C-alpha cells in the first residue's frame, strides 16, 4: 500500500512539475513573471544569458527565466548576493521551474540593475552545453 501511495505521489508530483514547466517553456511566461528589461533599465537581451523574466517579489535571488531569440527557455538563473553567502544565511529548496536541468554553471557577476551588488549567477541550463550558443549574442 505504501508503495502505491508513493507511486501516486511521485506521479502527481512529476505531473505538476511537467505542468509548471509547460507554462514557462515559451516566452513570455505566465504571471507573476515579468520581463526584467521592463522592471529595470537593462538591455532586453543580455549576451550570455538571453531575455530574462522574473517574479519581482523574488528579487534579488530569483529564479530568473532566460529565453533565446526564438522565445524558447534555455536556463533558470539564481542570482545570490555574495554578502549573503555566509554562515548565517541559507538558500534552501530553490526550484527549477523550467524542468529538467542538463548542467549547471556558477560564476561571479559584478552587479547590474535589479541586483546592484556583486553576486553569483547559478545557471541551471535546460539545454545541452553546445546550445548555450543560442544566447551568446
Amino acid at each position, binding site marked *: 500500500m505504501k508503495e502505491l501511495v508513493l507511486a501516486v505521489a511521485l506521479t502527481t508530483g512529476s505531473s505538476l512539475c511537467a505542468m509548471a514547466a509547460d507554462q514557462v517553456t515559451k516566452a513570455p511566461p505566465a504571471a507573476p513573471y515579468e520581463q526584467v528589461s521592463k522592471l*529595470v533599465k537593462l538591455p532586453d537581451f543580455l*549576451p550570455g544569458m538571453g531575455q530574462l523574466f522574473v517574479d519581482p517579489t523574488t528579487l534579488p535571488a530569483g529564479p530568473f527565466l532566460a529565453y533565446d531569440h526564438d522565445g524558447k527557455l534555455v536556463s533558470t538563473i539564481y542570482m545570490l548576493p555574495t554578502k549573503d553567502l555566509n554562515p548565517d544565511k541559507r538558500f534552501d529548496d530553490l526550484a527549477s521551474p523550467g524542468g529538467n536541468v542538463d548542467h549547471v554553471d556558477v560564476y561571479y*557577476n*559584478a552587479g547590474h540593475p535589479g541586483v*546592484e*551588488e556583486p553576486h553569483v549567477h547559478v545557471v541551471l541550463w535546460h539545454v545541452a552545453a553546445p546550445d548555450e550558443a543560442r544566447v551568446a549574442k
Partner: protein
Amino acid sequence: MTLTRREIMGGGGGLAAALSLSSLAVWGGEIVEIKMQGNEDGSHVWFDPIGILIKPGQTIRWINLNPGNSHTTTAYNPANFERPLRMPKAAKSWDSDYLLPNESFSVTFTEQGVYDYFCIPHEHAGMVGRIIVGEPEMHGWTELVGTNGDLPEVALKAFPMVEDILTKGIVRRT
C-alpha cells in the same frame, strides 16, 4: 541605435583662467571620452580611463560600450543618495542615471579640483573613477579629496592616485 545624450554643465564657479597648454594628450581636445566597459560574463566592469586630467571648460563624455549591462556615472556628492562629498564644494553634482549600451552622458567641468565618481550598480565591484580639473601641477589636492566616508574598501582601493593622474595625464585600469 538611437544615441541618447544628456548633457549638464558641471562646476559652479566658472573659472575662466587661461591656462597654458601642456603636452598631455587629453588637453588637446575639447571633449574627452571615458568608456564604461565590462567583460562577457559581467565579472569585471570598469571606467576607461579610470583617471584623467583635463583643463577647466573641457567636457567629459561617458559612453556605455558594455553590450550586456547598464552603467551610471554618478558624482560622490550628498545630492546623490547622500554619498560623501568627494568633489569641489562649489561644483555642481551629476548623475547620469542608467545608461543602456551605446548611450552617453556628458558633463562640462569648470571648477578646478578633484572629482570622484562611481557607477551605482557597481560601486561594490570597485567601478569608480577620478577626474582632475586644472593644471598638471601639485596643489595639495590629495588633501582635498573627501573623507573616506562609507565607501566600500574595494572602491577606495580602485581610485588612481592624484599624483599619478597629474604626472601621466591619463591613468588606465591595471
